[in-house]
């Protein structure tokens, strides 16, 4: 299987996972965004929202990394610039969810 096919499959699988996760998250975000500190910490530090938020971050940043690399492929002409941009977006897509998950698992009221 060539890399482009693997990338397309990863993109589609993550897309299928992302649709219900995004729906779940936005419904809950609108419910809690203006609530008190304690309510928000309880939301992020208890199950199933603890697991689902962490899972959303992993899948969303993974999907975005693949999607944005497609945009780079289409619009960046210089190969060196494209390579640096792809590395930057991959690093960003690993670090941000990783830090967020560590924080979520350390939240206490």
């Amino acid at each position, binding site marked *: 299987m060539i890399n482009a096919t693997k990338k397309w499959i990863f993109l589609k699988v993550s897309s299928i996972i992302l649709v219900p996760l*995004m729906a779940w998250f936005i419904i809950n*975000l609108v419910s809690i*965004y*203006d609530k008190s*500190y304690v309510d928000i910490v309880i939301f992020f530090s208890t199950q199933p929202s603890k697991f689902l938020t962490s899972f959303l*971050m992993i899948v*969303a940043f993974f999907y975005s990394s693949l*999607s944005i690399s497609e945009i780079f492929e289409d619009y960046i002409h210089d190969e060196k610039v494209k390579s640096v941009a792809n590395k930057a977006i991959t690093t960003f897509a690993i670090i941000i969810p990783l830090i967020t998950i560590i924080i*979520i698992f*350390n939240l206490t009221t």
Partner: protein
Amino acid sequence: MSNNNPLSPHIQIYSWNISSLISISHRIIGVINIVALTLICLWIALLLLGETNYEYIKFFLQSFLGKFLILGLTWSFSFQILSEIRHLFWDFGYGFELITSKITGLIVIFGSIVLTILIYLYSKQIF
């Protein structure tokens, strides 16, 4: 060695239609959503500062601008959800006919507005 692979043309040279509008919007909103998710990660990180410091963030989120941002985020998430579903149908080989593509494009545009209202009303337990 120069790369002679074809690249996407500038979007200005074609006349606009529903498909091209949804296509470019899907990409732009995807980028907006990942920026928004990064800000949500920052919001979660700011919880570590404690309850007293969180009052400033709560004040902002309860302001008109805060509510407007959340409503905008609800719309951009709704748009991406519907647009992803449209793409998934294409991946299974459905919806390529010109008229179907136009109808599903319109469903994405107007459906995202309806979905935003429904999510907001449901989440705020207005119904």
